Structure formats: structure tokens, C-alpha cells
């Protein structure tokens, strides 16, 4: 059993998001809208030594599997992450993240003058660029700190 598995115990069923860039674990929880209020058990490991990344974060959420929308946004913030779906303590599915072409309804536009911030019946839509994302409405490009623009559901 490897070192990090000792630090964060196994879960019966749910999702383990592994290989998150160190320091991003709380942003990952924010994306998933997890703040513990729903009563789910959440374990967070931060700055765990890793062979591949020197240090990484890891998040384990019991009783919850991620939707495709959630996976898409995760891929923008934690592109190296792997998602392990756990049933009966075993990994039944391992997903590597692929960057989507666009993300819909997840990020909010940082441009205050953008029509998506104006109380209109539209969802935000962002094209995913090689670096960052771009609002399809006002065309603002966001490269830094995407996690700050996640629209909390």
C-alpha cells in the first residue's frame, strides 16, 4: 500500500479525484458545489508526495459520481487529474480528463458589461482555447484563475 493511500482511507463508493495540481483541491470542491452541507463524507489530501508530480492534491467524495459537465470544468482547472469511480471499494472506472471544446453554464463571465451578466435568459458559453477560455458573447478571454469564475450553483 502506497504512502498516500494510508493518509486518505479507502471509500466504499463514490469518486476519487487524484493527481490534482497541488493547491487546487478546494477549487475542485467548489466546482462540484461540495461544501459538506449535503452531509456527504469528503476527504481532502493536500500536498501529498507524488512520483509523477512531486506534490499533488486528492479529493474523495463518498456516494457521488460526477456528471459530464462537472468533468468538463474539472479538466480546465485540473487537467492532469484522474477520476476514479469507486464501487464496493474497487475502482470500476478510471477516467482521464479531456479538454472539452466549450463549457456551458458553468463559468461566469468576468466582464461586468457582458450580456450574460445582465439578467437575461441565457446560459454562459465559453470556447476552450489552447490557453484559457473565451466568452462566446462578449469574447473576453480568461487565462488566469479560472476557478474564481465558477458560477456557484
Amino acid at each position, binding site marked *: 500500500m502506497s504512502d498516500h493511500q494510508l493518509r486518505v482511507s479507502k471509500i466504499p463508493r463514490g469518486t476519487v479525484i487524484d493527481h490534482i495540481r497541488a493547491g487546487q483541491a478546494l477549487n475542485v470542491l467548489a466546482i462540484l458545489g461540495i461544501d459538506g452541507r449535503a452531509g456527504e463524507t469528503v476527504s481532502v489530501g493536500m500536498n501529498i508526495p507524488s512520483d509523477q508530480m512531486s506534490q499533488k492534491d486528492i479529493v474523495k467524495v463518498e456516494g457521488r459520481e460526477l456528471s459530464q459537465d462537472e468533468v468538463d470544468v474539472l479538466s480546465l482547472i485540473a487537467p492532469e487529474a484522474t477520476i476514479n469511480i469507486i464501487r464496493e471499494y474497487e475502482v470500476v472506472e478510471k477516467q482521464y480528463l479531456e479538454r472539452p471544446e466549450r463549457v456551458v453554464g458553468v463559468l461566469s463571465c468576468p466582464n461586468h*458589461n457582458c450580456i450574460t451578466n445582465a*439578467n*437575461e435568459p*441565457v446560459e454562459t458559453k465559453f470556447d476552450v*482555447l489552447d490557453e484559457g477560455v*473565451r466568452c462566446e458573447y*462578449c*469574447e473576453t478571454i480568461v487565462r488566469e484563475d479560472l476557478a474564481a469564475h465558477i458560477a456557484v450553483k
Partner: protein
Amino acid sequence: MRHDHLITAKQLSRENVEAVLDRAAEIDADPAAFADRHDDAILGLCFFEPSTRTKMSFETAIKRLGGDIVDMGSVESSSVKKGESLADTARVIEGYADAMVLRHPSQGAAKMVSEFVDVPLLNAGDGAGHHPTQTLLDLYTIRENAGLDDLTIGIMGDLKYGRTVHSLANALTNFDADQHFISPESLKLPRSVRYDLHESGAMVREHTELDEILPALDVLYVTRIQRERFPDENEYQQVAGEYGIDLETLESAKDDLTVMHPLPRVDEIAPEVDDTKYATYFEQAHNGVPVRMALLDRMLEDNR
């Protein structure tokens, strides 16, 4: 998106641009031939911020084609004031009109409305975003005066918030045009416009001083530097002088330089320039009518 909405200048191919400009030239040559082309057409005018000139220019254009307008009036007097969404307002007016013109202070407004309406929509300015019909009249003016290929153009002033600049720069990537951008450091082209220009393979050459590049230019496109963009009045005063054009500035220019400005100007171009062969900005403004006639003519023709 419908092929006949015009939301951003990026939609315009060289072929589109040339078709509109050729039609505008036909109209210019014989306006009477177009006088009753669209005598049953109604154009819906939705101006959410005041813009007397752009509005009058559309109004003139549709009337010269034999059509008429419905106008939602000022925002103050409309249901918008009661809190109606833009999407709803647009869907209501769509029912009255064969085509719609939208001017709105928010960026992306036209793109959003285009998702809700079925009649052709013309973006007449969305915040600091796009202003493609202005771009077509700018291109018409450039073609008449300097030609659109083998062109060296300087675009100067507030490049950050200037939507006419953003649209023009995008459209010019269809032609063999060398674009030079001249502005104070704080008003440089925004990242998104630079991104598009790079994507289309255009070279972006940026300058802080006009005299570095003026002697090479065929066209100088000047825009207004807005005082309110500067946090501090001293900073504004420093740059304002730097980017003003007068007879002395133009001494190093080519003989056949064309000086353009989308108007209104404040003090970017001294009145003494008006009577010189360089001044093309009033002609440019007048070109708005035949160009908008050409655009409406093509749109309405497609929908007959």
C-alpha cells in the same frame, strides 16, 4: 445562427464584403433605381442607447429603398424601464418587422438576441464589442480612396474600447493590408482582438508614437480618446496632445494619405485639416447610407 444576421465583422468574408460594397457603389451611381425596391419592408429599430446618427442613417437607408421603420423609442419611455428583458423586447418587436437593428450598451447583446429572433438582425454596436455596419462603410471609404489591397493603414486612438476599431481590424484581415496600431500603452488593443488577428495570420504591429509610422501610411484611421477612460486628468492631457492631428503632424505624410474618423470627433483632428485633400471623414459618414442600403437590400432580397 442565420446566415443573414450580421453580428460581428468576423463573419464577413472577402466575398461578402465585396458584394456589399459593389452593391453600394451601384446604389451610389443610381439611387433612383433602388427607390421602390422594398416598398413593403419594415425595419425595426431597437436602440438601447442614444445614437442619433447611426439610427438616422438606418432610417434614411430603409426609406430610400421605399420601406419604413418601427421604432421602439427611447429606453426611458419603453417597457424596458419596467424591467423587461432584452430577449423579450426583441421577440416582441420581431413580430412587427422584416429585419431588426440593435444598438445596446452590453457586449454580446446582439449575439444573444440572434439566438431568439428569426428575422435578420443587424448589430449596430454592442458596448465595446462590434460595429460591423460601420466597418462596411469604413471599407467602402477605404476602397474608394486607397484601395483595399496593397494597403498600409494606421489605426490610432482608443484601441481598447473602440468597437469600430475591433471590427475594422478583423475585417481587414481579408485583404492584403498591413495594419499598424498606434495608442497609449493603457489603451492598446484588447487581448481578444489580438487573439483573433493572430489566429487569422495577420501581423499586429503596435506603436506608441505616430511619427514612427506616419510616412508609410496610405490611410490613417483616427478614433476618439475618451477623457473618462483615464484615472487621472494629467495622464489624459499628456496623451491627448500626442494623438491629435493637425497640419504640422501631416507634414511627413504621403501626399495621398486618407485621414478617416468614425465621428464624432472632439479634438483628435484639428478643424484646419478639414479643408485639406487628406480629410475623408465627412465623406465616410455620408457613405453610411448607400452601404446600409446595400446591406438591407441584400438581406431583404434573401427573405422575399
